């Protein structure tokens, strides 16, 4: 909601932008939950978004698949048709070429879950539902600042733009790589496969730590790429929108701000938003593809 800053004495674009892309504060959670083992389980906005995405996907996909399985015709229609096309695309052109025929059905479910979860969480970040809710609240509802509705309004809505979320996803990839290698070659052989075989022993002293660090770096790169990409687009949009307030402050006239907004900000934001739609799909695709590549590397060892 870009009109927040205009009310304060000086408009601080950095502060407003950070508030809009970061998670809501744990001190003012949406729902209070108890602290277990030193971990505060209270629901912040990104956690709420994760729940919404998970529940929505579970209900939608289970419902449409069950409906399809019950019908007599083997031809899917509507949403199921689209779903089937995506599932088939991921199985045949992401998982199969990387993982191989033997393990394709073992790893397709995980990679499909990754894809649907990431693409939905990414796409939800593009829908300005909380911004619209904020406008409604400000001009029509006038709720109490401590109400749940008001707490929901603070912080970004893109759960995949949070490094903790992407780190958790990458951790699943990391474990999946180990499980895949273990399933294909056995536990000990998987760890032996980490380094190439048949080298002189002094080389191993250097190679083993480097390979182990490489193992950790891969999920780290996955974490950074997804979160940074999802956050970057939002920051760009908000920075362009903040021109409106910067210019109205600079020239002490709302008209100047609105003019700059209409001529510069609006077309640019439309363009960046269009790019964001592509990024939403490409980042989900890249994450799933790289997960499949890494799992495939653990299964088909080429040393």
């Amino acid at each position, binding site marked *: 909601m870009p009109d927040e800053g205009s009310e304060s004495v000086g408009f601080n674009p950095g502060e407003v932008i950070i508030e809009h892309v970061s998670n809501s504060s744990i001190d003012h959670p949406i729902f209070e939950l108890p602290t277990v083992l030193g971990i505060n389980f209270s629901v912040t906005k990104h956690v709420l978004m994760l729940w919404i995405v998970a529940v929505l996907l579970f209900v939608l996909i289970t419902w449409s698949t069950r409906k399809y399985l019950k019908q007599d015709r083997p031809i899917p229609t509507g949403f199921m048709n689209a779903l089937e096309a995506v599932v088939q695309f991921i199985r045949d*052109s992401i998982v199969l070429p990387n993982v191989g025929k033997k393990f394709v059905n073992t790893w397709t479910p995980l990679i499909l879950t990754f894809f649907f979860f990431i693409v939905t969480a990414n796409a939800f970040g593009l829908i300005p539902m909380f911004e619209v809710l904020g406008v409604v609240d400000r001009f029509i509802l006038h709720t109490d600042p401590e109400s749940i509705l008001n707490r929901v309004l603070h912080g970004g809505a893109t759960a995949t733009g949070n490094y903790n979320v992407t780190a958790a996803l990458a951790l699943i990839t990391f474990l999946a790589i180990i499980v895949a290698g273990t399933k294909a070659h056995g536990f000990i052989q998987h760890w032996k496969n980490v380094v190439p075989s048949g080298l002189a022993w002094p080389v191993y002293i250097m190679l083993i730590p*480097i390979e182990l660090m490489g193992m950790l*770096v891969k999920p*780290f790169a996955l974490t*950074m790429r997804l979160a940074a990409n999802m956050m970057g687009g939002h920051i760009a949009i908000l920075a362009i929108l903040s021109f409106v307030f910067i210019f109205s402050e600079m020239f002490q006239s709302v008209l100047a701000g609105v003019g700059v907004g209409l001529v510069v900000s609006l077309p640019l934001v439309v363009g960046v938003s269009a790019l964001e739609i592509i990024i939403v799909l490409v980042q989900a695709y*890249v994450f799933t*593809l*790289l997960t499949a*590549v890494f799992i495939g590397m653990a299964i088909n060892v080429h040393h």
Partner: protein
Amino acid sequence: MSGQRDHFLAKSLESLQENIRRSGPAATASYTLVGAVLFLGGIGYLLDQWLMTSPWFLLGGLLLGMVVGFYEIAKAVWKR
């Protein structure tokens, strides 16, 4: 007309997919280079903060990150 457009779209999608699939290892390696430098440099920085040894662990971490990153690139390049 619609059939032709479908065909065109399908062909573009296919070639995009093929290109992304082929660039997969290279993209992995390049991200690994950046990731390794950031990751190990970050660990070095934190160790420096903790042990008050600035800047030695940071420098060591950055160097090690470059070694690991270039090793991953070398692996991707000389695979075939």
